[in-house]
């Protein structure tokens, strides 16, 4: 498997075998997180909008591999503030770094960057569009907790209409004979465009409006936040808001192997009393992000 110089802009840029290859490399980094394999390399982290968690996770991955980081954490600190085009910024940074990791508020920005860059580009989020490394770390977390990605029952809970992590995860997990349990308010159901991934593979999916309906059926409970601003009518939000909050008392009937995942940051959709239960896995999930990003950087730089 050779992923050298490959961009990662959307989860669909890689296939099932490539996902598994990255997860295998991540496992190796988890066993041995400090590996000087990227010594002498420079990684540019260009964050045109702030994202502390993703940026620090990437920078931690780079540091543990012996490479150096250059970049900015806010567009106001870059030449974009002076009116430079994205393409010119990327062309210039290509001269300084071996790999570009970028986050941008506009959808499609990372794809544009990959077309003009002379070094590979990893998308660390482009507006509401794609965040493929989050999806990779979700896959890794599912594999770590279940020992496999095949034939699982996965519940997606919350805002399934707008949640980009949900859309990417459905697309990726459709490669592994998954049965999907979709729990959301009526107005925030999974879009038909995303359901197409499930249908194309002839997989099963079930739709629900309450979390307890899926609790005894699933191996993974993937929580996302239902945001007030997604509702046209505030009363509609008030009616459903408590239906999508996971509390410790709801875990009674769960399968013994069930784990709760969340892309973070959490606001109130998982009560803090869940944190100490054996089902809570969201902080380890964030930790897994570093190993997965190490794996991606190593593969794309051709170091592994």
């Amino acid at each position, binding site marked *: 498997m050779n992923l050298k110089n490959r961009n990662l802009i959307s989860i669909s840029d890689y296939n099932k075998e490539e996902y598994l290859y990255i997860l295998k490399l991540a496992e190796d980094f988890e066993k041995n997180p400090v590996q000087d394999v990227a010594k002498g390399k420079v990684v540019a982290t260009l964050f045109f909008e702030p994202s502390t968690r993703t940026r620090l996770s990437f920078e931690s991955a780079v540091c543990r591999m012996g490479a150096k980081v250059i970049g900015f954490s806010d567009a106001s600190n870059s030449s974009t503030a002076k009116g430079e085009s994205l393409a010119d910024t990327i062309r210039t940074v290509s001269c300084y770094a071996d790999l570009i990791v970028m986050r941008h508020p506009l*959808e499609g920005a990372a794809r544009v960057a990959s077309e003009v860059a002379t070094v590979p580009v990893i998308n660390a989020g482009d507006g*509401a569009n794609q965040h493929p490394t989050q999806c990779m770390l979700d896959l890794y977390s599912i594999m770590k907790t279940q020992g496999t990605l095949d034939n699982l029952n996965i519940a997606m809970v919350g805002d399934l209409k707008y949640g980009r992590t949900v859309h990417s995860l459905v697309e990726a997990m459709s490669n592994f004979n998954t049965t999907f349990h979709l729990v959301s308010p009526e107005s925030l159901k999974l879009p038909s465009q995303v359901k197409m991934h499930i249908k194309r593979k002839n997989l099963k999916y079930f739709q629900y409006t309450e979390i307890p309906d899926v609790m005894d059926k699933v191996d993974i409970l993937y929580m996302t936040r239902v945001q007030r601003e997604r509702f046209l009518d505030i009363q509609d939000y008030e009616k459903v808001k408590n239906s999508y909050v996971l509390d410790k008392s709801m875990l009674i009937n769960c399968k013994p192997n069930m784990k709760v995942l969340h892309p973070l940051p959490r606001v109130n959709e998982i009560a803090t009393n869940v944190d100490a239960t054996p089902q809570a896995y969201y902080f380890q999930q964030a930790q897994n992000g570093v190993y997965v990003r190490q794996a991606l950087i190593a593969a794309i730089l051709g170091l592994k």
Partner: protein
Amino acid sequence: MKKELVVSAIKNGTVIDHIPADMLFQVAKILDLTSRNTLVLLANNLDSMKLGKKGIIKCQDLYFNQDEINKIALVAPSATLITIRDYEIKEKMNVGIPSYIEGTVKCYNPKCITNVEKVTPRFDVIDKSELKLQCRYCQKITKKETLTFL
């Protein structure tokens, strides 16, 4: 009674007939006729059995490849392309929706990079009958109802 031609015949070139009257100038723009140095004749609001009112374009010494022709299918699916050689009709073709479109249509998503930076919009046509275009940058789908031409 002999029918009189409203627009003169051309010796060699292409005639684009059955263009919806409100799309004549859009077709001319898509085919970049404003920057051509050859004779280009346009007529609009001609009576048409099929369309009610139609437009017609005659281009002296200009021929189009299938990709160029297909671009106008988005605005004029009823159009017919007629190749003329020595005043004779040599070939008649209907237009077809292409599977890829570049630089003709705007992405409907205001947060798409193509609507903010100088980036040429590119789309894959994912449904030819319903006319659904998926942006290669933001992945959003522009539908027939939300189609805006550049």
